[in-house]
């Protein structure tokens, strides 16, 4: 297999960075086309890097820390919001399942017989009970649905 770069290239780059040149390495660079080419590119880029450091004005690390803390809080909030969304979905599934179960059970009681047996105060009492139960369900669901609407429109 053809060797595509000189094995001393890393030593040359290291010597350029540290300034510690051996006479053998200098001699090698003078004779090796790969190493002299690498040195040329490295010197050009090194000069550019030094110039870049002069122009570089990184922000105070305090702001980085503040920003990372803010991001951490946002991530935690997002995770919590996702958890709440899952709980909401489970609650909705539970309400639907409970309603289906209740209606099926009620139908099994042979509604007509029950309805014909109820009259006067008994039917009024049953109707009021159903209305109170519905009011409770709606009152419980209303804040959840409203919150979902706000979160959904805020995205």
């Amino acid at each position, binding site marked *: 297999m053809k060797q595509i770069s000189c094995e001393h290239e890393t030593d040359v780059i290291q010597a350029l960075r540290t300034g510690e040149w051996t006479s053998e390495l200098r001699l090698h660079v003078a004779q090796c086309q790969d190493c002299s080419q690498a040195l*040329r*590119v490295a010197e050009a880029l090194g000069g550019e*890097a030094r110039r870049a*450091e002069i*122009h570089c004005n*990184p922000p105070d690390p305090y702001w980085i*820390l503040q*920003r*990372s803390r803010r*991001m951490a809080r946002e991530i935690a909030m997002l995770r919590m919001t996702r958890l709440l969304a899952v709980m909401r979905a489970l609650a909705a599934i539970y309400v639907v399942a409970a309603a289906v179960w209740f209606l099926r059970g009620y139908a099994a009681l042979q509604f007509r017989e029950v309805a014909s047996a109820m009259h006067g105060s008994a039917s009024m009492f049953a109707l009021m009970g159903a209305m109170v139960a519905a009011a409770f369900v709606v009152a419980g669901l209303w804040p959840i649905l409203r919150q979902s609407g706000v979160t959904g429109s805020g995205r």
Partner: protein
Amino acid sequence: MEDASMIAGWITPGREQTAAGEEGFRRLYEATSRPLWGYLQHASGRPDVADDLLQETYCKFLLSKAPAMDEAQTRSYLFRIATNLLHNRSRSRDDSALEEPPESGVQSDQDARLDVRAMMRQLKPRERELLWLAYVEGMSHAEIAAATGLGAMSIRILLYRARQKASGFLRPQRIKS
């Protein structure tokens, strides 16, 4: 030069909330932010992009759940985050234009700078990254592979090609004594 024992006490990601962690982060930042900015600026070709990505790199580092690392691993990890951010950005936007800051200094310096900038403009982002990591940061092929996500075996040939190409854009150098 940073003392090795101090560097060993550099921050563990996620521990920046403590005073010791904050001090560790400051030391880490002082030691790495300028080289990292230089890398980002030359790989992206834009100082404004480098400013943005520098902050993002450290934020991601602080939020990461990586285990405790020594100096070399931390440096390599930071360059890896920066490289990933560069790739994400280049996939989503067109940041190909290299900005030309106002030139200053003696004529030969300006010439050299123009030379290098012209060379960088001709290279692909991946080639700029490889050359910078190898020849400015002095990273080994394994470290470059870790930072760029490329296979360690392919670094040698990619770097060789990038160097050949870069060399072609540089004017012959004056012999230094």
